[in-house]
């Protein structure tokens, strides 16, 4: 089958859901789709959804790969805080932008190495292995910022959070380019296949000659790198590193985005693009609730409702029941045809 067609078929449920949510928002808030250009930059609710969804979309990229290996990374929120703090501290010292960004990225990768080491070498359950850094991470970030909110004035760093490129806000450009690069890298090489193999059966893929420890390590490092980029964006956006609140509970939103994107938590088949759309769905719901004048208190309940619906749809039991139902319908249809003949 044409790869583009099969990708489209894979993404259909997510795209339909996103379209439905955007349509519902449009019903209660008709000017939702209106875009205006001011100072060479696009403005509008739609751009806002893309912009505010940037941290979760970035985290979802790494989380997808980790979940595909049958793992999970709870530490990404804390890693965001650490990397944001490192970037701010470096900027305050007066380092040039390149050094600041390299330091933040290296910190994220180091956090990924730590998680990956615990998972692949010590064989610790991922949920627990990454819990260590989740608990300790914010403390480490506080160590870097020395308990204060570090503010900085470097315009180059601030540009990453609130500047714009080709009419789009910088965070949007970053997550779209980064997400597509990772998706292409995984799907145009054998890497994606190997990751799926590890997620489905780690032992079998090791026996088949896949270098599982290195792959697992790479997955967690990618997740750390994604958290670093998201951390820098969030920090640059508010022009300061807030060790307590940067990326707080975003790991849960990122996991949710991956699940909404249809990647199973049990590992195996994954789609980075679907997770990105999942992140957009979550952000569209958030923005939609605010725009439509619903009390924001309902936000979490609606999120819970979405998770439950997805769980029921993804459940192995419901799926088999559904396929049996389809088969029966098919069989009765074919007997009718025979009778007609």
């Amino acid at each position, binding site marked *: 089958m044409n790869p583009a067609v099969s990708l489209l078929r894979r993404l259909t449920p997510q795209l339909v859901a996103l379209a439905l949510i955007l349509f519902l928002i449009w019903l209660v808030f008709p000017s939702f789709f209106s875009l205006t250009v001011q100072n060479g930059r696009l403005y509008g609710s739609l751009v806002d959804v893309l912009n505010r969804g940037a941290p979760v979309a970035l985290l979802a990229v790494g989380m997808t790969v980790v979940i595909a290996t049958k793992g*999970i990374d709870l530490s990404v929120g804390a890693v965001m805080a650490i990397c944001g703090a490192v970037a701010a501290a470096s900027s305050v010292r007066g380092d040039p932008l390149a050094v600041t960004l390299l330091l933040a990225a290296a910190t994220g990768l180091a956090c990924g190495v730590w998680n990956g080491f*615990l998972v692949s070498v*010590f*064989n*610790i*359950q991922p*949920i*627990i*292995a990454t*819990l*260590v*850094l*989740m*608990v*300790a*991470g*914010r*403390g*480490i970030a*506080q*160590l870097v910022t020395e*308990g204060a909110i570090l503010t900085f004035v470097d315009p180059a760093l601030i540009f990453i959070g609130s500047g714009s490129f080709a009419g789009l806000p910088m965070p949007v450009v970053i997550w779209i380019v980064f997400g597509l690069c990772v998706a292409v890298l995984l799907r145009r090489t054998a890497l994606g296949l190997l990751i799926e193999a590890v997620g489905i059966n780690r032992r079998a893929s090791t026996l088949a000659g896949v270098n599982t420890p290195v792959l697992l390590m790479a997955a967690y490092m990618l997740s750390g790198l994604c958290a670093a980029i998201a951390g820098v964006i969030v920090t640059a956006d508010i022009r300061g590193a807030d*060790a307590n609140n940067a990326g707080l509970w975003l790991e*849960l939103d990122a*996991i*949710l985005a991956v*699940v909404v994107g249809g990647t199973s*938590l*049990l590992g195996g088949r994954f789609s980075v693009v679907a997770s990105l759309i999942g992140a957009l769905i979550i952000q569209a719901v958030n923005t939609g609730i605010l725009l439509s004048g619903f*009390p924001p*208190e*309902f*936000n*979490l*309940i*609606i*999120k*819970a409702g979405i*998770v*439950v619906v997805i*769980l*029921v749809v*993804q*459940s*192995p*039991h*419901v799926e088999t029941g559904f396929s049996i139902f389809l088969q029966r319908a098919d069989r009765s249809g074919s007997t009718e045809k025979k009778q007609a003949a």
Partner: protein
Amino acid sequence: MIAINQRYLPLAATVAIFILAYAACTTQYPTILSTRVIGNLLTDNAFLGIAAVGMTFVILSGGIDLSIGSVIAFTSVFLAVLFQKTAIHPLAAFALALAVTTAFGALMGAMIHYLEMPPFIVTLAGMFLARGMAFVLSIDSIPIKHPFYATLQAAYYRLPGGGRLTLVGGLMLLVFAAGILVAHRTRFGANIYALGGGIATSKLMGVSIARTTVGIYALSGFLAGLSGIVYSLYTSAGYSLATVGVELDAIAAVVIGGTLLTGGAGFVAGTFLGVMIQGLIQTYITFDGSLSSWWTKILIGLLLFMFIVMQKGILLVSRKR
């Protein structure tokens, strides 16, 4: 003989660390050993301890429950709103709250079993739902000014040396005692251990998987509700943003208490020590005064890491034999 030793090894390590840490704190601040500090340690960690008992059962069965922090907040807001809007007696309100949270837990257990979904994501949905319901009830911090609350808060047992064992602290000790009994002296407890050892094997042993799974999460919901009641007594208020992340503290307490995260092995008593170690770190930081509170998190993270590595080491050694 060796097998028994290994079973108790994580617990023994926890006991040793607790005693060593307490001794180290006492040499620096002798008053930490006084019953006043111990009484406060029990009172301040009562809600965490009660919730951690439920978490111990969940983890023993090989699952996880992320919803407890939200359920505690929901319970405290639910009670506060009830007292504000109606003239209901607190005891009746407590019963109502416990019924709601137990049913909530049972529902999650049913979803985990019948939909065959990972507990992580089901209880994540539960976490969102409970927090959301708390927000819908009220986004303000509502004070509770019921005379019965004042009576309950004033009740304490005077320990020798001037310390006070408050009602909530005593309740936590009772819950731990009951938890130990349930884990080791009832069929339900044996079923939980069996479930943690492996679903297929426990099925073959005749354990009713459905009933046990629903029961475990119902118990966790009940204890989270009880913890919410204790929290509302402790703070005299209901606030929907309270107790964020308590589930992580509870998981950390269970792990530091020596319970195996893959399920099937561990002790409720270990969790008590896990909670007390966390409380001790906080108390030490308060005594010191110059250390920032975020050292608590780093130290707890470090302890978590140590225990995970130790458990792995024990597993490795036992396999080699």
